[in-house]
């Protein structure tokens, strides 16, 4: 097989290349200066420059559409959106990392290297047009994250959760790869466009192909924590340094779901005489929503609570994915998925960002008690967190509301009324635990002595900005709907 590529291919990949070059510079500086960690501003500045240049290059690629690198990756406006969300997560994640006590000190150059490469992995994953490239993307992303979690200065949980994530994640990757091998064995190709032509036929006739699809889907569902593959989520989210949680929770989920959305356009699920994918996924969505929201009720640690709530949100995303996967002429489901992830990214970054801001030493874990009286001592921060929590609960007019609205609308449009009903029930349950931090911040007095806050100006700025986006983008969601609708039209037509 001959590998060749032209300038356009490089142009399309330029954002990833910019990130890669940017990731190498800090470690090189460190290596050349005798393994002495430079001032954190140096790697942080370099990372920012490479992120923003990646963003600029991405905008430069606006309008490019097609398959590149011998059809290994696909670039269209959906790729554009996912890359922007990943870059947003990277920017905010790095900012939080720089100012968080558990990550800022000794190995910040390495942290920058790993974060940027994880972002590249996410992009490759979401852009992939070939199952092998998908796997490479997932592995690049996951390997960087395993190490990133373990690099925390926190002593108790981070090593454990890194290991847990590594073992379970590797297992999921293996299952996924196993599935790919079945698919390749049955279809003779790993390229998505080629599979698209024969998928419906294969799904109705070939059992081995179905086994492959089921295994492959299981691996993917693990990555965005759908029941019964969700149990790693609370532990890993809790043990990771909070900035890494913010980056991982948004980035991994965004990349995975965008890939699944592409995968849904294969129409495998509606193939006649095949595995009842839609039924099974519906039940998984319902159970995921319930498990996530009921699990969150009992958590004292805010991070664990948000982790469980993240599981619940994955369930809502899955509702949208099912509605998109059933097909038909309506694209509300696919648009809803894209918008939901857009909303989820902003909300997750902001909520974990607030927690990261509150942490005063590497071992501190923010519990409900720590939030008491926050409305008096840090009014802006309390207001930001309240807005984000209300948005997560789906109170209008925030992005979270319109995300839920679209997903529920998609379900109703596809006559999945009972699925929408379960979604609503989960939403009502979620109100209870989302309101508890607000109660603590506004309605209870601080029991602790006067606390000193570590100033974290850039993170503070980022979190406030994100909270404003939660409301602002909610009210002006029309322009996003339009753009997302056009993007999904490209792959679902």
């Amino acid at each position, binding site marked *: 097989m001959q590998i060749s590529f032209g300038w356009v291919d490089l142009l399309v990949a330029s954002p990833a290349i910019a990130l890669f070059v940017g990731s190498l510079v800090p470690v090189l500086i460190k290596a050349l200066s005798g393994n002495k960690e430079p001032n954190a501003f140096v790697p942080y500045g370099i990372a920012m420059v490479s992120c923003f240049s990646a963003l600029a290059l991405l905008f430069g690629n606006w309008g490019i559409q097609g398959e590149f690198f011998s059809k290994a990756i696909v670039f269209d406006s959906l790729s554009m959106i996912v890359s922007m969300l990943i870059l947003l997560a990277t920017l905010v994640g790095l900012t939080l990392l720089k100012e968080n006590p558990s990550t800022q000190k000794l190995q910040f150059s390495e942290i920058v290297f790993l974060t940027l490469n994880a972002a590249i992995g996410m992009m490759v994953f979401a852009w992939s047009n070939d199952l092998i490239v998908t796997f490479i993307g997932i592995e690049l992303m996951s390997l960087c994250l395993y190490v990133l979690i373990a690099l925390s200065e926190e002593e108790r949980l981070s090593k454990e959760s890194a290991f847990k994530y590594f073992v379970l994640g590797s297992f999921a990757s293996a299952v996924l790869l196993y599935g790919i091998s079945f698919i390749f064995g049955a279809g003779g190709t790993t390229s998505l466009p080629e599979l698209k032509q024969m998928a419906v036929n294969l799904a109705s006739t070939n059992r081995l192909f179905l086994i492959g699809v089921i295994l492959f889907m299981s691996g993917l569902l693990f990555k965005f924590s759908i029941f019964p593959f969700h149990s790693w989520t609370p532990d890993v989210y809790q043990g990771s340094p909070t900035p890494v949680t913010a980056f991982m929770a948004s980035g991994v989920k965004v990349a995975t779901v965008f890939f699944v959305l592409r995968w849904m356009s294969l129409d495998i699920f509606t193939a006649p005489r095949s595995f009842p994918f839609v039924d099974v996924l519906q039940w998984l969505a319902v159970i995921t929503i319930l498990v996530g929201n009921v699990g969150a009720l009992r958590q004292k640690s805010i991070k664990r609570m948000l982790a469980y709530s993240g599981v619940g949100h994955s369930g809502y995303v899955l509702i949208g994915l099912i509605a998109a996967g059933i097909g038909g002429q309506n694209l509300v489901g696919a648009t809803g998925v894209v918008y939901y992830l857009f909303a989820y990214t902003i909300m997750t970054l902001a909520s974990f960002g607030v927690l990261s801001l509150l942490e005063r030493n590497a071992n501190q874990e923010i519990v409900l008690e720590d939030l008491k009286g926050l409305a008096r001592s840090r009014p802006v921060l309390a207001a930001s967190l309240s807005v984000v929590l209300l948005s997560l609960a789906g109170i209008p007019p925030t992005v979270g509301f319109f995300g839920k609205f679209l997903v529920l609308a998609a379900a109703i449009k596809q006559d999945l009324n009972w699925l929408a*009903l379960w979604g609503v029930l989960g939403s009502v349950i979620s109100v209870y635990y989302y309101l508890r931090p607000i109660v603590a911040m506004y309605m209870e007095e601080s029991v602790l002595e006067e606390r000193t806050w570590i100033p974290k100006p850039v993170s503070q700025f980022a979190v406030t900005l994100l909270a404003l986006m939660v409301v602002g983008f909610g009210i002006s969601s029309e322009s996003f709907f*339009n753009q997302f609708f056009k993007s999904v039209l490209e792959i679902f037509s």
Partner: protein
Amino acid sequence: MFLSILVFSPLVLALIVGLVPKSWIRPTALILSILHFGFSLLLFQHFDPATANLQLVEQSPWIPTLGIQYFLGVDGISFWLVILSTFLVPFTILASWTSITERIRFFHINLFFLSTAMLGTFLAMDAILFYVFFEASLIPMYFMIGIWGGARKLYATLKFFIYTMFGSLLMLLAIIGLIFMAQEQLGNLSASVLDFYKLSVPFVAGQFLSTQTLMFFAFCLAFAIKVPMFPVHTWLPDAHVEAPTPGSVILAAVMLKMGTYGFLRFVLPIFPEAAQYYAWLFLLLAVVGIVYGALVAMVQTDVKKLVAYSSVSHMGYVMLGLFAFNIYGTTGGLYQMLNHGISTGALFILVGMIYERTHSREIKSYGGLAKVAPWYTIAFLIVTFSSIAVPLTNGFIGEFLILLGGFQAHKILGGVAVLGVVLGAAYMLWMVKRVFFGTEGALVAKYKDQGLDINFREVVILVPFILLIFWMGLFPNHFLSYSKASLDHFVNNMSNYELKVGP
């Protein structure tokens, strides 16, 4: 632009209150809210009472992809509720003058946010916009109960929030269904309430799992919780007892009306067949609510809780009127919404005044208050008369019309509702007797030297309420003439209601 300014100016006022020095907050908030009320009175100039059309309309696309518009308008149904909402805000500020002592700035900001949400709910003519305001009104009220409330405030505020949220989310599903139905029947996605009126939602009599019946009950649940109707009323006593006085006033006077307004604006005209078919159920629940509320109020030992249960009973009358499907019932229902706002609002203010002095609401510990606080007693008696519908007061007109309509609709239930009037008089007057007359209670003896009677500020608060009670009781036409055209149109076209936009 008029309605938009009316709805969103409180947000600007909240900003101003957020910026002034601490000692100026109360006066500034009071003056601004009076100005806002004055501004809302310009509605009288712009509003044409002769037509049933939707007036002062503002319509522009908001999220056209989903058919959602920014759509405001006022007609005879919402007219007085808007005035009521703006009217109450200055009085709640005055009533909280000495009782709210902590976090004054945040309190007033909350109040102005709530004002925007309430006005938006009554003026929004797009279902999603309505939903946004309907839900948004929960947040300031949540804070109001949760921060300035009583001992069990956290429990009460959470219960209030989750109850309401549950109902309204089911309604959201029904709204989504209607939006898609608009696409099928009218050709384009639309969340406009006027388009919803044009839909014919498929109805199968007697079959619960049919489209219209399900949507009807989804809407009903949302609004019945808000009203609150028996048996989903249980959040109300908790919320009222724990809420601070201004919170109780707004909650009783305006936020409960969002529920009955929802029935009038959405449920009855959009689902006429289901509403007629299941009218018996709602008439029954309304009457059960009237009697149950009255009976439970009778055994309360806490004055505020008594007033809270009386709300359940009074809102039962409103529902009885609305589901009577005739002009008397509907007119009476709308009038009773205003009456209840005035009289129960005033009752909560009065209870708050005495509580501020004695820090107790136990009926037992009072007695003989009339001798010590004569002016307070007179005010309380007048408001009580309004509440129990004594002729010459506003309550009489409302309840009389409702009972008239109720009798036409259903003889037996109408008869039981009359029994409720008697019970209502009984529990209120019994409470008055125990609190104001008889032997001097322990609390009264303890505090009588410190002056239990009302001061000048409190007189200023109460006089407008008392004037309104008599004005509305003696000249109901001054008020009803603004709603007459709309209500006539509503009753005459019940089964194929439509609303036109026009001056």
